[in-house]
């Protein structure tokens, strides 16, 4: 009984724990990627301990894959050598770690997963307590299978109403960030609930949990229902809901009148209604990332781009988040649509989100991205501007070459 996070952690440690308690808990899986992995390996080696469980240790090559530099190749080599030495077979180079972790079955309702990436909160959509940590914590978990957690107080976000056409989970999350600020949920668990969230598909819920860290949350949990099990291709294991929870705060949001939201530079909490920013010239549009790189996002974009051309003055980059999403997009003709529309389709991975690989922004350039961070310098030059929005807004904007309203497109 309690909030979702209290229930999950209580079951895990075998006794009733409450917000404010600190626990040492076993994890189901531990993940690092090509940038955070080498430091985690260094920490692991310093411990001089055997590995906890090679089959539950995951490395993902996604932040710089395929490598574009000698330095990145060196990081990849160090991870491959470590994996070979310790018999780790979960060495994936098939897309963004958080999407791969879900596809590959490392995430289960009621589970506990830690990852060396802040957006490890994503798995909360599946009722799994998951959080991002630094490489040292992850190296310690690779050796011990455990980590310590202060059980967080919970902010419940109770959502009612129906999202209008062209308005998505991304807009709900950005709206919340506008109201609460970038550290509005620092140290808290966020619970996304209410009829609107129940009616959402898992792809949209994953977006909510993903963005929870961007207003500070330790985890972003959704209730588990029949859709959750179906998404995981598992037999229905029953619902998981809070029982007599005591919340630190409850935020009620009705989305009936919500319009698409855009986060404007220089920080994510600078969120405005789309109508205020429509017409802003764009040099780049990026569609993808762990926030919005799933096949459902690709479907929205393909529907918008079909029969259109992207603006010749705006480079448009589209990246299906995983190899699975890429193959599905191929089979459904989305890739054909993207390429014919003039977009550049790139290999599954993190892409331009962190300015390290392709589509790096120059000074004075302005991008609209479906990712989740717009700090100065995030996607390249610190003198570039990054706007964040949902995939429908991104597709409409790619066609127009300026920030555009997808509701006016068809």
């Amino acid at each position: 009984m309690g909030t979702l996070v209290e229930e999950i952690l209580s079951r895990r440690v075998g006794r009733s724990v409450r917000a404010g308690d600190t626990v040492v808990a076993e994890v189901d899986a531990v993940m690092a990627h090509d940038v955070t992995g080498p430091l985690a390996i260094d920490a692991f080696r310093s411990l001089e301990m055997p590995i906890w469980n090679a089959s539950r240790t995951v490395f993902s090559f996604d932040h710089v894959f395929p490598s574009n530099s000698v330095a990145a190749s060196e990081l990849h080599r160090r991870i491959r050598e470590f994996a070979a030495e310790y018999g780790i077979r979960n060495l994936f180079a098939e897309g963004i770690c958080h999407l791969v972790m879900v596809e590959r079955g490392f995430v289960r309702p009621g589970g506990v997963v830690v990852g060396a990436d802040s957006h490890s909160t994503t798995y909360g959509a599946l009722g799994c307590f998951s959080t991002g940590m630094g490489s040292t914590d992850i190296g310690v978990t690779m050796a011990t299978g455990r980590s310590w957690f202060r059980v967080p107080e919970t902010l419940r976000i109770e959502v009612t109403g129906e999202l209008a056409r062209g308005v998505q989970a991304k807009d709900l999350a950005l709206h919340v960030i506008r109201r609460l600020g970038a550290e509005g949920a620092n140290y808290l668990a966020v619970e996304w609930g209410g009829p609107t969230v129940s009616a959402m598909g898992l792809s949209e819920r994953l977006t909510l949990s993903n963005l929870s860290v961007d207003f500070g949350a330790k985890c972003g949990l959704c209730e588990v229902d029949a859709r959750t099990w179906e998404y995981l291709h598992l037999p229905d294991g029953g619902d998981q809901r809070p029982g007599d929870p005591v919340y630190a705060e409850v935020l009620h949001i009705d989305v009936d009148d919500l319009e698409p939201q855009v986060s404007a530079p220089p920080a994510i909490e600078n969120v405005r209604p789309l109508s205020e920013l429509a017409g802003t010239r764009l040099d780049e549009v990026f569609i993808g990332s762990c926030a919005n790189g799933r096949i459902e996002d690709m479907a929205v974009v393909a529907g918008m781009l079909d029969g259109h051309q992207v603006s010749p003055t705006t480079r448009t980059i589209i990246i299906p988040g995983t190899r699975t999403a890429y193959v599905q997009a191929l089979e459904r003709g989305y890739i054909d649509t993207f390429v014919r529309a003039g977009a550049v389709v790139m290999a599954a991975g993190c892409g331009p989100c962190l300015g390290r690989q392709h589509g790096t922004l120059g000074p004075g350039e302005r991008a609209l991205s479906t990712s989740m961070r717009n700090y100065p310098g995030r996607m390249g030059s610190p003198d570039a501007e990054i706007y964040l929005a949902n995939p429908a807004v991104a597709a409409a904007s790619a066609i127009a070459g300026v920030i555009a309203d997808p509701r006016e497109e068809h």
Partner: protein
Amino acid sequence: MSRVFRFGDGISTDAIMPGRYNLTTDPAALAQACFIENRPDFHETVRAGDVIVAGSNFGCGSSREHAPLSIKACGVSAVVARSFARIFYRNAVNLGLPVIRCADLYDAVEDGDQVEVDVEHGTITAHGRSFQGEPPSAVARRISEAGSLVELIRNHGWAAIEEVV
């Protein structure tokens, strides 16, 4: 005495260590890139023992440990901020980089001021005034006393943390 390098609110790990510069794990190389775009002269002007004083949500964004590691490698003796992003704070503690939450110091000092920081007690003296930082949690204190999380777990295992929670 320590010289203050003062930063504003919402300093992200992208500002501390842009993603394009963290393709190394060598502390000396990371130090060279510390605040490279946000404050390009930082790594050249900072001296061992200097302190960073910042506003709210210091270290927000990515979990990349390269950020606190680069600050530590520059010789910074402590980061004192109004508030820290959760992951950055935990990473700093794990690495043995002293971090102190203090609500009042930020408005009382300017860039280049001289202050005295007592890391053990979390107190800062500036312009003859004393500022008290918030005490760390029992777990954070235990890790700090060991020097780093790796040292603590290697020598004492999880029992060292379980006995203080």
